[in-house]
């Protein structure tokens, strides 16, 4: 099996979809000739031509609005937003249009658009190349939100998203775009949407994260093991619909949970996860659920390292749940 990084895995999924599905169409800023600023669409312009891999003018509202128009006409558009920080000019098209088209037309107009966009910090990108706006979209009824943490899941989840008929925001953890490498099948396979992955089993505390933060909780679990604490590590993979069964089962078993994301804490996705767990596992809980998140400040430049959650902070939260 070949080894790929996340960029290569995404590229491979896109190539398979473009080959097998004549209605698939890629559009976005610099996705064509250049192959995307992160090179996720590299080679596709030459292979599939300028009518199916479209370099658009610089306007995100145009990219998503046009993708919607293509989708309701029967195409399977895969727009790219260059950085999720630049998704906001398209916010109206995504929140009020894309997410509501099926519902508002009484099911007449499904809108199978899969928006790909890089997210997250840790690349010295300051406010506008680092944000993690997933909660805004999870909060939007009608939109699925997916955020893988490794190449295998990235390819399998992207192919799964491309095969179904609902709009998806497919977020890609750019900090580990190239650093995360692993074995990925050359051909087609899918990873089920809505299923979390228990990365490693443990007894005392459940650690839940997604995207680039999965590496952080794995690291924290290792540090915890060194001092005799056993953690269960869960990679959520799909944020909406999230895998309530897997996390409920785990927290019922361990009685403790630490939820980690790099987006700001207040109204972050961790609040929803914690709340859902309280509703289902209150009787099993041994301690309040801890959240380790980005601070409620704009994403900084020089103090990026201080801003980002790290394994030490997660370890602190693990101890807190045990000492409670």
């Amino acid at each position: 099996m070949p080894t790929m990084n996340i960029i290569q895995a995404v590229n491979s999924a896109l190539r398979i979809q473009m080959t097998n599905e004549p209605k698939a169409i890629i559009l976005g800023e610099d996705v064509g000739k250049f192959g995307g600023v992160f090179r996720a669409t590299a080679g596709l312009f030459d292979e599939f031509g300028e009518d199916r891999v479209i370099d658009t003018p610089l306007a995100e509202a145009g990219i998503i609005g046009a993708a919607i128009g293509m989708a309701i006409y029967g195409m399977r558009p895969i727009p790219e937003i260059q950085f999720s920080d630049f998704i906001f000019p398209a916010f109206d098209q995504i929140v009020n249009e894309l997410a509501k088209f099926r519902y508002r037309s009484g099911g007449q107009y499904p809108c199978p658009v899969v928006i790909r966009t890089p997210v997250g910090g840790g690349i010295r990108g300051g406010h506008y190349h680092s944000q993690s706006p997933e909660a805004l979209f999870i909060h939007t009824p009608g939109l699925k939100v997916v955020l893988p943490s490794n190449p295998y899941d990235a390819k399998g989840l992207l192919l799964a998203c491309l095969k179904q008929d609902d709009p998806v925001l497919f977020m890609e953890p750019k900090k580990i775009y190239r650093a995360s490498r692993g074995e990925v099948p050359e051909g087609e396979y899918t990873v089920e949407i809505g299923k979390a992955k228990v990365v490693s089993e443990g007894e005392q505390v459940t650690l839940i994260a997604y995207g680039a933060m999965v590496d952080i909780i794995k690291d924290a679990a290792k540090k915890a093991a060194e001092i005799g604490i056993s953690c269960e590590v869960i990679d959520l993979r799909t944020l909406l619909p999230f895998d309530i069964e897997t996390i409920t089962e785990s927290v019922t078993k361990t009685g403790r949970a630490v939820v980690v994301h790099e987006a700001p804490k207040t109204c972050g996705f961790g609040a929803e996860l914690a709340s859902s767990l309280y509703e289902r596992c209150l009787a099993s809980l041994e301690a309040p659920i801890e959240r380790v998140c980005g601070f409620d400040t704009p994403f900084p430049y020089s103090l990026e390292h201080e801003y980002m959650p790290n394994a030490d902070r997660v370890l602190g939260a693990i101890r807190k749940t045990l000492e409670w």
Partner: protein
Amino acid sequence: MNIKNPATVDSLELRRVLDDDGKVVAGAKVPEVSEKDLLRLFETMLMVRVVDERMMRIQRQGKLGFYMKSLGEEATHLSVFPLRDDDWIFPSYREQGAWFWRGYGIENFLNQLFGNRKDPTKGRQMPVHHSANWLNVVSISSPVGTQIPQAVGTAAAMKASGTDSVAMTFFGEGTSSTGEFHVGMNFAGVMKAPVIFVIRNNGWAISTSSERQSAAKSFACKAVGYGMPGIRVDGNDILAVIQASNEAVERARAGLGPTLIECVTYRIEGHSSSDDPSVYRNPAEPSLWEPKDPLNRMRAYLKNESIWSEGLEKEISDKYNDEITKYLAIAEAEPPPAVETLFDDVFQELPWHLKEQKEYLMQQARTKNPHLHNS
């Protein structure tokens, strides 16, 4: 790959004062600029070139996270020439010359690039995202085009306040595709706001060629749809840039409303230090634009006017090279902002939740965490 040739670009009406050899074109309106100002304009363009060259070099050495050059576009920055200190500037990320013209020096420039404790914006943004309220130059944002309607609002406020101040905003031709451009132009037209829109048409928006941004014959002609004049000018001709800008600023001050100026120029190098243009652009293309180089053309003009000498040019470039050497050492040595400043300026005062988070971070800083700086 298609080639973007200046000869075909020229076929549309383009205001020009200097030819490629720096000679005044027959019948051109030469703006009145004093000898002192001519030298200062030349000095500012040269300063941009010296700074760009040095900064990209240290970026390549791994000392700087990111940088964006303006090679070949320096003359467009000096659209700010007719502005007064009370006029406001809303820049994009590629107008270093406008900052230097206003008096934003090497010291601030370098401290911002390093995001250190002396950075006027406290290390909050990526390199090249400056802000200088004392110069009436507004904070740069990465999301392109956001500054355009803001400039219109400031201009409308100037008008409502009864001053004759004006606002000028800069952006690339790619940015003219954003909603903000069209919204801003429309508001300005309707409000008759004293604002000047300067499009730096450098032919490229990262890898996207200007023909893929607009099917219109020019960018200047977009002005028609919003009820304002549009001027298309050779953006590598400093005197033509100033002539157009003079006209637009005069109109705005006289209460006649907004003007759109398209400065036709060319991005000689990559979009930024992270870019590799060889992937998407014919490598022969930049050389076609070399004869249009704005600094060479101005130098030739000054030579003809007998106000340039080799010694003078060397003096200027030595001066800025020395300043860079001096302030680079300081900027590199200066520590990053103190940890607790992470929470400053989110609001005027810290609400309870940020107080708690600050307390938590400082607690971490005090207990051992090798990643935290001492503050």
